[in-house]
C-alpha cells in the first residue's frame, strides 16, 4: 500500500508549524520522524490532507541544566540512546530509547513524536511519566508547560490542541542516591512491549526509601503512573525483597489490562507484578552507585 495523496509544506520553526497547522485546519498534521505517521498513512489508517514537515527545524543539542536535561522535540531516539550526557545523567531514558523499534526507527523517530503519538506501549511516554518529565507545548497563544502525565489521555490521544506542537521535553536528572530500572517484556526483541516498567527510587544515607515512582506501559489505554498510595509502604522503609514484592503485587492488582493478540489481560497483570518487583529491586540496588556505574550497559541488552 502507498499513502493517499496529500500536500506538503516544510517549515523551519515551530512557530511556523503552529501557524501552518492553524491555517490548514483539522486535516493538517505535523510529520517528525514519520515512524508512526507514515506506516499509518501507508496502511490508509491516517489520511491527512496536509503534512507540515518540521524536520528543517533541527534538533540541536541535548542540554544539561543541572536538575534536568532539555531535549529538543526533534531529538532522535538514537541520539537519546547514545548521548553521553543522557547515559550519565538520566540513564533510564537512554535504556528506554534503546528499546524503541529497530535501528531505522531510532535513526528517524523523535522524542516529541513519541509523546505526541501517545502509544500506550511506547517506551518514552512510560519513562517520561515515571520521571515526572515536563513537556513544552507551543500554540497560538505562546508556550505552556505540561507534565507528561497530563499530556497523555488515551490510545493515540493527548491534550494537545490540533494546532499545538511539542517543542521540547525536560527530564529530571538522577539524584546522588537515586536508582533506576527499565524492564520490558516483548514477544521478540525490537517488538512493541507487552508490558514495560520504569522504576525510580531514592534512598537516604541509612538505605531507607525517601522517594519512589513507578510507571507501567502496555497495561492500560496510556502509560500508567502507579498512584502514590500504592507505593506509600516503601517510604521510610528498608527496601527488602518481600516488601518490594508486596508493593508490586498490590499495584498490579489495581490493573484491568485488556486481552489482545499478544497476551491476555491476566498475563499482563502477572507480568506487571513480576517486572515491577524486579525493577524496584534493580533500582534499589543501583541507588547510591556512582554515575559511571549507573550508566546503562547499552543497546537495550536486558540488565
Amino acid at each position: 500500500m502507498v499513502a493517499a495523496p496529500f500536500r506538503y509544506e516544510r517549515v523551519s520553526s515551530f512557530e511556523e508549524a503552529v501557524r501552518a497547522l492553524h491555517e490548514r485546519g483539522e486535516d493538517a498534521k505535523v510529520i517528525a520522524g514519520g515512524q508512526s505517521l507514515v506506516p499509518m498513512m501507508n496502511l490508509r489508517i491516517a489520511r491527512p490532507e496536509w503534512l507540515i514537515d518540521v524536520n528543517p527545524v533541527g534538533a540541536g543539542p541535548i542540554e544539561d541544566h543541572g536538575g534536568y536535561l532539555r531535549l529538543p522535540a526533534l531529538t532522535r531516539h538514537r541520539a537519546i540512546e547514545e548521548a553521553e550526557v543522557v547515559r550519565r545523567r538520566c540513564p533510564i531514558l537512554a535504556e528506554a530509547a534503546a528499546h524503541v523499534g529497530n535501528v531505522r526507527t531510532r535513526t528517524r523517530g523523535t522524542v516529541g513524536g513519541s509523546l505526541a503519538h501517545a502509544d500506550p506501549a511506547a517506551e518514552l511516554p512510560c519513562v517520561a511519566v515515571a520521571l515526572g518529565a515536563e513537556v513544552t507545548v507551543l500554540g497560538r497563544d505562546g508556550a505552556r508547560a505540561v507534565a507528561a502525565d497530563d499530556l497523555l489521555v488515551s490510545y493515540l490521544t493527548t491534550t494537545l490542541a490540533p494546532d499545538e506542537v511539542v517543542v521540547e521535553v525536560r527530564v529530571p536528572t538522577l539524584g546522588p542516591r537515586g536508582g533506576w530500572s527499565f524492564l520490558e517484556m516483548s514477544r521478540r526483541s525490537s517488538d512493541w512491549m507487552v508490558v514495560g516498567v520504569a522504576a525510580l527510587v531514592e534512598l537516604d544515607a541509612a538505605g531507607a526509601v525517601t522517594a519512589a515512582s513507578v510507571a507501567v506501559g502496555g497495561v492500560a489505554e496510556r502509560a500508567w503512573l502507579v498512584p502514590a498510595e500504592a507505593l506509600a509502604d516503601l517510604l521510610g522503609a528498608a527496601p527488602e525483597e518481600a516488601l518490594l514484592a508486596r508493593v508490586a503485587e498490590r499495584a498490579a492488582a489495581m490493573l484491568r489490562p485488556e486481552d489482545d493478540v499478544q497476551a491476555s489481560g491476566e498475563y499482563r497483570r502477572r507480568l506487571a507484578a513480576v517486572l515491577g518487583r524486579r525493577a524496584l529491586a534493580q533500582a534499589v540496588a543501583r541507588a547510591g552507585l556512582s554515575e559511571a556505574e549507573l550508566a546503562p550497559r547499552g543497546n537495550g541488552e536486558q540488565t
Partner: protein
Amino acid sequence: MSDPGRQRVTFTVNGEDRDAWVFPHDSLLDVLRDALGHHEVRYGCGEGVCGTCTVLLDGEPVSGCLLLAVQADGCSIVTVRGLAPGGDLHPLQACFLRNGAAQCGFCTPGMLLTAWALLQRDPRPSRERIRRELVGNLCRCTGYSKILDAVEEHAAQAAEGSGEPRRGAPVGREGSGEGTGGDA
C-alpha cells in the same frame, strides 16, 4: 482535494547527482526503484518492519518506505550498490558469500547496509551488538546465524588490516544531515 503537484528533488545516490520530479506522497523507496532504476532497494512490508528497503541517508540506515522522497531533497543516499562501486565485491559481501549468509538474497541489501553502518560506528562490535543492530532486518531463509558469522568475520578481518573496513561507500556528510540528528 486539489492536485498536490510534483516537485523536483535532487540528491546524490552512491555519490552521483540525481534528480526526479516527485509527488509529496512518493516514498524514497518508490522513487529510487521506479524513477531511478535502483532495483536493489526492495519493497517488503511498507511499514518499517522488514528492512529490505534500508538505505543510508547521510550515512545512517533508514527505511526507504517511510521516508518521503521530498524529505531526502539535498541528502546523500547510499544503496547496496554503493558498497561495491566498481562492481568488485566489498569484503563484507565476500564474507556473506563465503558464510552462506545469503540464500534467496531478498533481505541481503538491507542486511549489508545495516551491518556496514554499524561497523562504521563500532569496528569490533560484540556478537550481541550485531544481533541487536540487525534485529530489524528480517530474513526468511538463513536462520540468521550465518549472517552474524559473516559480519563478525568481516569485523575480525578488518581489525587485522585485511578487510578494508572503510573502503567502499561514497557516503557524503556522514550523520550531519537534518535527517539523522546525531548532533546531540
